[in-house]
């Protein structure tokens, strides 16, 4: 009797509460997020493509005319395209490489039972808490040609004979932006690898020790195989971030000297907002979007494979 009463109550509660079907209720809950995505992301990305098919300059709006893929042809055949593409890809490659090596080392050390472990783990978050802008400020001051720390340090160790302007010379400006980016984007990668290390069962290391496997053999045959997925995730995150780099370039080198550090994204910004050439600017921006898309597809396949995407 009491059970029946409870059941009836539960049912009536459910009907009064959910007059909507479960599916409709779910979409109602999703509505604010869907609106955000549709109005602020989906519409703009379609609109950007549409604009990239037009001749459109903000200073001469009357010349607005449909030109098909002409803007893309102009961008790809311009003198600036191949250098920008190679700057973008090389920047992404070396940043990713630098982060992977440093993050792996840091994760291995932070996984050891040493007294400074809590300190190291807390400090890993420092670059994460710093925005790209403050990171750029910091490195601009370090690379300062007169009073900068790098010149002072290298000079006092006798490694350079005279002060250099790191951000102004073609060979070092490139290294400078990579260093700043590696410093800034290290934390997520280090933490992902650390979590990967912590997931390795310790029995495997015990077994390897019984077999008298060397330190290197243990790393090569136990650690690395278990880390393959976290490493792949690190590579993808870094690649996605590297391709769209903007603030560090804008603030440290302004794309210079010359076009030495002009990435595709920086060219898109300059074309759209300095030359006010919206048509070509969006074509530049779409080259970034296409590179991103290729990597994103890899990423989603990976996450699907791990079962992270499920309903």
């Amino acid at each position, binding site marked *: 009797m009491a059970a029946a009463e409870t059941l009836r109550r539960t049912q009536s509660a459910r009907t009064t509460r959910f007059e909507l079907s479960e599916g409709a209720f779910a979409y109602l809950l999703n509505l604010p*997020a869907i609106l955000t*995505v549709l109005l602020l992301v989906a519409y703009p990305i379609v609109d950007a493509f549409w604009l990239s098919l037009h001749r459109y300059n903000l200073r001469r709006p009357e010349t607005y005319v449909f030109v098909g893929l002409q803007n893309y042809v102009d961008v790809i055949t311009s003198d600036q395209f191949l250098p920008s593409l190679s700057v973008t890809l090389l920047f992404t490659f070396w940043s990713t490489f630098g982060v992977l090596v440093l993050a792996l080392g840091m994760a291995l050390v932070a996984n050891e039972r040493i007294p400074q472990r809590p300190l190291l783990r807390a400090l890993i978050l420092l670059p994460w808490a710093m925005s790209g802008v403050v990171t750029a400020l910091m490195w601009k001051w370090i690379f300062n040609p007169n009073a900068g720390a790098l010149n002072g340090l290298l000079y006092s160790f006798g490694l350079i004979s005279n002060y250099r302007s790191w951000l102004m010379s073609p060979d070092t400006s490139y290294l400078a932006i990579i260093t700043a980016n590696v410093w800034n984007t290290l934390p*997520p990668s280090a933490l992902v690898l650390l979590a990967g290390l912590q997931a390795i069962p310790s029995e495997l290391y015990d077994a390897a020790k019984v077999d008298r496997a060397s330190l290197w053999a243990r790393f090569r045959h136990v650690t690395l195989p278990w880390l393959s997925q976290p490493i792949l995730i690190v590579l993808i995150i870094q690649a996605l971030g590297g391709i769209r780099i903007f603030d560090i370039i804008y603030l440290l080198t302004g794309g210079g000297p010359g076009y030495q550090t002009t990435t595709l994204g920086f060219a898109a910004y300059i074309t759209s907002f300095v030359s006010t050439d919206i048509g070509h600017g969006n074509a530049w921006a779409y080259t970034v979007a296409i590179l991103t898309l290729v990597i994103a597809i890899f990423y989603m396949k990976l996450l699907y494979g791990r079962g992270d995407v499920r309903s």
Partner: protein
Amino acid sequence: MAAATSVRRRRLATTLRYGVPWRAVMIHGASLVFILWLVLPFGWVVLTSLMTEAESLSVPPHWIPDYITFDNYLAFLNPAMLGTQRLVGGAAAQGAARAMLNSAIVAVSVAMLNMVIGSLVGYAFARLNFRGSSTLLLVYLATRMVPALAIMVSLYLIFQTLGLLDTLLALILSYLTFTVPYSVWIMASYFRTIPRDLEDAARVDRCNWINMMVRVFLPVASPGLIACAMFAFMSSWGEFLYALLFTSSLNSKTMPIIIAGFVTDVNTSPVLMNAGGVLAVVPPLALALIFQRLIVSGITAGAVKG
């Protein structure tokens, strides 16, 4: 004879191998290098911000200030103190207080909107069966990867049409584009870890859904909510590209724009610049240290920053 040498050699190798704890030396050496790599660059910014202008410009650089001064920080509070520094970086310093306030308003608004939007969506994915749910989750994931560079022009034109340029609302709306997809992800995965018994108990008591969420579900899910708010706050606080494009006066300029003003100004005052950098880092750094554990688990779960 040959045998004796080889024995001696082996003995030597054994002493070397076990006499010196190479592994420990390596680990401690590496940890020291990493700690210095993390601390020194920012440490130097902090040290410079405590110097007088003249000392900061000395060649070779002074590492430790001879005389510690807080004037560079006080100048941000009271621009009248700037004195001769008024010309070098003084204008940027004068706007900094307003820009801090703008940054705080934007970042807190974005964080609160994300908590609301994220918990609604998170609940739907964690508890309800509906058609197209996996497609929808995929759409959110894909949204997270859209580069800001690809939509910046269109957003600019939209805000121009709506008359929202140079308002905080434009920044708040544009920051939803990269925070909401991330919050959805964090919330959906966090809400799945909460046992269903809680809500079942609440249902018997005929609470309505919103009551149940506010009284029962969200308090239990608060670590997820805090992580979501934290990520939204951090990425909004430091955002640069949209702020550069959509703001033009102190009505809406945020702290990153002020900092950028110092960095790109050729005649900038290094001490004011570095003090500004430290001020801009304090709020997110404090949050990161307070919520260290939550952030670490959030980063590894989401595996992407903003």
